[in-house]
């Protein structure tokens, strides 16, 4: 931790009950090596106890602290202040897009969670089905195979960044489609049928913002394309025989 202190202004989105949203400003002295979430927490602790924000693990595993920082979706527990600001800057903090706001920086992500359940995304997967893109420690399951926690932490950044999700709540969205891909990677004709619709895999317009903002190596854009190919293969198979 450096001993340097920066003076940074935080413009935080506030919204309570039925009032229109507004921005409150807080001038903080921060260590540039701190995370944006640390600053938000300090605002809550020492400036305004009515500030509502979501956070839990503080190490990019739970997916709770997703917010828009200067307009870009970030997992605030792993976003260094020096990454997105300088001494004297203003940092704008807003809730994720495309989810209804409950209060201040907290959004209702229940559609994401229920969507994941609907497509059968598994929080724990065999290592063979989801190769590690980072340095992780797989664990041996009872049957001897290696298992790991799935990359997706259900933070919702991808849905916030998706242009299609901005205008329609019907679209499954990148997180859920990536989850469907994970669920159906070794078959899963039912899942494939579920996403083979206008609001599923065919709604994506290849903006790849989801992949850009994902903090957890999921690459949802790529997964959607893989899912499209799996859907087509399944359709062709069913044309010439039975679906697997």
């Amino acid at each position, binding site marked *: 931790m450096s001993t340097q202190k920066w003076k940074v202004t935080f413009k935080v989105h506030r919204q309570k009950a039925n009032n229109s949203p507004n921005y409150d400003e807080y001038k903080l002295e921060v260590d540039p090596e701190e995370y944006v979430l640390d600053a938000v927490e300090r605002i809550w602790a020492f400036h305004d106890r009515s500030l509502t924000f979501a956070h839990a693990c503080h190490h990019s595993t739970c997916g709770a602290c997703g917010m828009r920082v200067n307009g870009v979706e970030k997992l605030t527990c792993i976003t260094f202040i020096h990454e997105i600001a300088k001494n004297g800057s203003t940092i704008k903090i807003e809730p994720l897009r495309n989810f209804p706001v409950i209060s201040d920086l907290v959004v209702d992500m229940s*559609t994401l969670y229920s969507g994941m359940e609907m497509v059968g995304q598994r929080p724990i997967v065999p290592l063979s089905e989801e190769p590690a893109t980072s340095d992780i420690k797989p664990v041996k399951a009872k049957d001897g195979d290696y298992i790991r926690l799935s990359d997706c932490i259900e933070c919702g950044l991808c849905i916030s960044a998706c242009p299609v999700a901005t205008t329609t709540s019907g679209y*499954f969205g990148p997180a859920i489609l990536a989850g469907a891909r994970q669920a159906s990677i070794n078959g899963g004709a039912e899942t494939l049928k579920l996403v083979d619709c*206008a609001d*599923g895999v*065919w*709604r994506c317009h290849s903006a790849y913002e989801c992949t850009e903002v994902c903090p957890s190596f999921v690459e949802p854009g790529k997964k959607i394309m893989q899912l499209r190919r799996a859907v087509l293969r399944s359709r062709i198979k069913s044309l010439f025989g039975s679906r697997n």
Partner: protein
Amino acid sequence: MIETKSIQKPDEAAGLWLLKVLLGVLIIIILTIHLIVNHFIGEGALLTWQDVVDYFANPWIVFMEITFLVVVVSHSLIGMRSIILDLNPSKGTMKIVDWVLSIIGVVSTVYGIWLALKIASFSV
């Protein structure tokens, strides 16, 4: 909410999407032919009414242009439909949209074919 309607109405989304892509590929091919063939007429452009009539005297040209018309109109309308779908219309609205787009498609195609054949007839 991932509204349950999206599970209830699978839509022939895959079919239309694939058709859009296929039509797109055809457009690229036919457009290239169209540009090359135009280049060999007159001074490299159809600059007078007579040029156009002479151009359409060739039945292969008529065939190519009519195919081009059908392919472009279809691709364009399927594309417009996609954009409208992004706005989360209700089932009822979408039925109307589908009707309107289909009518526009049929009318443009019939009109275009009529026009092509009419121009071709000027040189008979």
